[in-house]
């Protein structure tokens, strides 16, 4: 072997350096030199033997990628790039997650202030946090759609049953990863979503002593605290990513082994041609698939960065408080269906049903052995899957507070207009336009559009939870709302003899309410906003049905305006 010095003597410095560079590149790419890379990028034919296959054999990163695909599977349909995007999301979450880890300590004493430190003291901190959040939700969506696509094209069938099984496990790990990250900010949202969700463990169909100990392990104490936070943190940053990585490589290796199944109509029933591809129908990984994947990575990065900037703001509520339960505790949207089921059926039944459903999904390909992947031959299976999807959508809606968890009407109005957590129109008004005094719903303040809009939103909330005894008269208590805007009361008598007043589809509303908003400045740049609710018993005007107040505070600098910019929060600011 000639040394570099020998080469210089033999070829001159320029030639020797070029040869050396070529050699280094060939080592790094495990087989392709500079000329090969240029040829690949130009779209030239490879030289013989094909150097573009060598990285698949010799390099670590490409050995779990097939060296070519059937050209039929390289178009948008049938894969929609969902598998690649799932992988991309995992890498994305790992990178943004590691950056966030730098600024985070898993302790109830400091976790919450760490969040504010990220937002107020770390350059690009809010962007990174939002990128991690939108990436997490996008990953759940992409992985779920990847599974859906695999089912619809029948790609779970033999020989890919095990690929499907690992895919199901990856889906569950994705959901758990997303959900385990929920606790880390240690705010009210985190604390109560987790508390409610893992309390499900207590209802599992197993002996009570087992359930209680599982719950104890999950919480680290009789209620979530320092130990619980540390456990969920370690799950989130260590155990779950590790498990996911393991199953990810198994999943990927199965793709090398079996290839990607062709669109169902493109091959004979019972055949699997993905690995027996004629030469002229091959699309090689280098350069075509690689370029394609890099393009999709670029587009996904653009979407996620822009989304973190303008679309999706990670919520941060007030500090976790084990004593005060917020009015409406909701699971994240991708688990809302389970909350819906809990409202429908017995807790033990639901908690037992979910793992049973998961097992059923995993073993499904081993029982569903119909040979044809064609849509026309799988009418029953596809119909059942669409019914299941519809059921999940309805369940998801049932999981929201709109379904069967209305509180008293005054509290419902209070939480809409002056929520305990998060932004609202009232909190986002420009501070200098907020007037002090007492105001009625729907009151118009001349020359002050912001206040008028805020009082209109109060009117909307009041109307949604009120009725009038006589619609032709309206509500004399609130003259600022026209008679025609109110809903007529329907009276319902309970067995106890008490009367309940309904309006339209809303049960238990306020008959002829009096509502006023009081705004006072109690400290420099600090407002106290008080909603006063007075509802007299229609049959006995001496007595109050409801006589309550709902108080919130708003500081001039509280900056809810910034949150209202994002579309995931803007609906609260209208």
């Amino acid at each position, binding site marked *: 072997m000639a040394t570099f010095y020998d080469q210089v003597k033999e070829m001159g410095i320029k030639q020797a350096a070029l040869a050396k560079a070529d050699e280094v590149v060939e080592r790094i790419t495990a087989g392709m030199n500079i000329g090969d890379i240029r040829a690949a990028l130009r779209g030239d034919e490879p030289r013989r033997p094909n150097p573009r296959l060598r990285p698949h054999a010799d390099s670590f990163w490409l050995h779990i990628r097939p060296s070519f695909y059937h050209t039929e599977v390289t178009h948008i349909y049938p894969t929609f790039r969902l598998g690649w995007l799932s992988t991309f999301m995992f890498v994305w979450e790992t990178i943004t997650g590691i950056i966030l880890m730098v600024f985070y300590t898993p302790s109830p004493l400091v976790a919450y202030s760490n969040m504010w430190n990220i937002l107020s003291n770390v*350059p*690009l901190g*809010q962007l990174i946090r939002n990128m991690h959040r939108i990436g997490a939700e996008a990953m759940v969506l992409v992985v779920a759609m990847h599974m859906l696509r695999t089912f619809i094209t029948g790609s779970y069938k033999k020989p890919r049953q095990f690929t499907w099984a690992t895919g199901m496990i990856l889906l569950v790990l994705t959901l758990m990863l997303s959900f385990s990250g929920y606790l880390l900010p240690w705010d009210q949202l985190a604390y109560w979503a987790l508390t409610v969700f893992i309390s499900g463990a207590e209802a599992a169909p197993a002996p009570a002593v087992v359930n209680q100990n599982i719950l104890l392990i999950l919480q680290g104490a009789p209620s979530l605290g320092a130990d619980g936070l540390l456990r969920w943190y370690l799950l989130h940053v260590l155990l779950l990513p590790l498990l996911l990585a393991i199953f990810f490589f198994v999943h990927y290796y199965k793709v090398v082994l079996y290839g990607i199944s062709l669109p169902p109509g493109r091959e004979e029933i019972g055949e699997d041609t993905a690995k027996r591809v004629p030469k002229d129908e091959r699309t090689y990984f280098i350069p075509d698939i690689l*370029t394609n994947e890099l393009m999709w990575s670029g587009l996904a990065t653009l979407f996620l*960065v822009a989304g973190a900037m303008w679309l999706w703001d990670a919520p941060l509520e007030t*500090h976790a408080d084990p004593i005060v339960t917020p009015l409406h505790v909701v699971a994240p949207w991708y688990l809302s269906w389970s909350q819906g089921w809990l409202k429908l059926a017995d807790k033990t039944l639901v908690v037992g049903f979910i793992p049973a459903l998961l097992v059923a999904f995993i073993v499904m390909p081993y029982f569903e052995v119909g040979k044809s992947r064609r849509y026309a031959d799988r009418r029953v299976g596809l119909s059942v899957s669409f019914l299941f999807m519809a059921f999940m959508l309805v369940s998801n809606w049932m999981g929201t507070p709109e379904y069967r968890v209305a509180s008293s009407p005054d509290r419902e109005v209070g939480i809409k207009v002056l929520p305990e957590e998060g932004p609202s129109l009232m909190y986002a008004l420009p501070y200098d336009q907020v007037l002090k005094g007492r105001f009625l719903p729907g009151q118009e303040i001349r020359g002050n559009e912001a206040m008028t809009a805020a009082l209109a939103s109060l009117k909307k909330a009041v109307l949604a939870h009120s009725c009038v005894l006589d619609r032709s008269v309206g509500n004399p208590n609130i003259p600022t709302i026209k008679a025609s805007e109110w809903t007529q009361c329907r009276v319902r008598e309970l067995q106890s003899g008490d009367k309940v007043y309904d309006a339209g589809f809303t049960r238990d509303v306020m008959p002829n309410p009096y509502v006023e908003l009081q705004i006072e400045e109690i400290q420099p740049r600090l407002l106290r906003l008080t909603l006063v609710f007075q509802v007299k018993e229609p049959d006995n005007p001496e007595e109050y049905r409801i006589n309550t107040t709902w*108080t919130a505070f708003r500081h001039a*600098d*509280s900056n809810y305006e910034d949150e209202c910019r994002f579309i995931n929060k803007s609906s609260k600011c209208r």
Partner: protein
Amino acid sequence: MQVKIVIGTISFMLTMMILGFVALQEPARLERFTAARQGRQIEQGAHLYDSQCATCHGVNGDATECYDAATGERIGCQGLPLNYKPMLCGDRTARMVALGWDGTKHGFVAATIAVGRFGTAMPAWAQEYGGPLRPDEVEDLVQFVLNWETEELCAQPDFVFEWPATIEELLVAFPEGDAARGEGLYTTYGCSGCHGNLTDPASAAVGPWQGNLPEVAATRVEGLSAAQYVYESILYPNNYVVADCPNGPCTVPSSMPNNFPLRMGDSPERPQDLIDIMTYLGVLPLP
């Protein structure tokens, strides 16, 4: 393939442009969020103040308007005023000097809330010291209390009234009392919350009834006139504690607020309030 390379490159460039755009706005955003953090701490502190502190320090922090948490009735304020110049103004407030606190103002307020103040009605609030509040809640309260500081408040002239030892000396400066005004002040200062009204002995819930004060006060302590006894008892409740209260033996130290020397002495004219109340109670004018 060329198209894909172009699309990928363009997306990469757009991403970089967005990042650059974000980076340019970062300094302003960080400032907004720093202020927002403090603003939201103050909001949380306001909630806590309303539920935990207002009963003793008054709804406006000036120890004038206090309400019983359970019944909603007006009671005497046990605490010192907080929305108050000697508490808030300057890096080293008058209160810190008086108590010999060498640390920061923030630390002083935080420590007072966390561990309470020995020998007064102020209990420890931090969970660490047996109270109900988490560390973050103590911090929220500190931010809220310090937010009362304004230029206007701190521009007020310093004034602490020097109370003379005897009522006679005070009467030299404030010779006339107004019983009607005293009746109003009897409620405003929260006296009626514990001592009830002057007509019905049953109205006194916590402290002794004051309807028969002129007769009782004259005989309570040998050598003290009725007026001198009442004068001292209002300003320094622990000087003389009577044996029996409406709800059993009176507590020692007295549960009566001991902040009246401050509250009735925060301006040159304010001691008139004491004269008016004593006139209303019937121990002034002197016989």
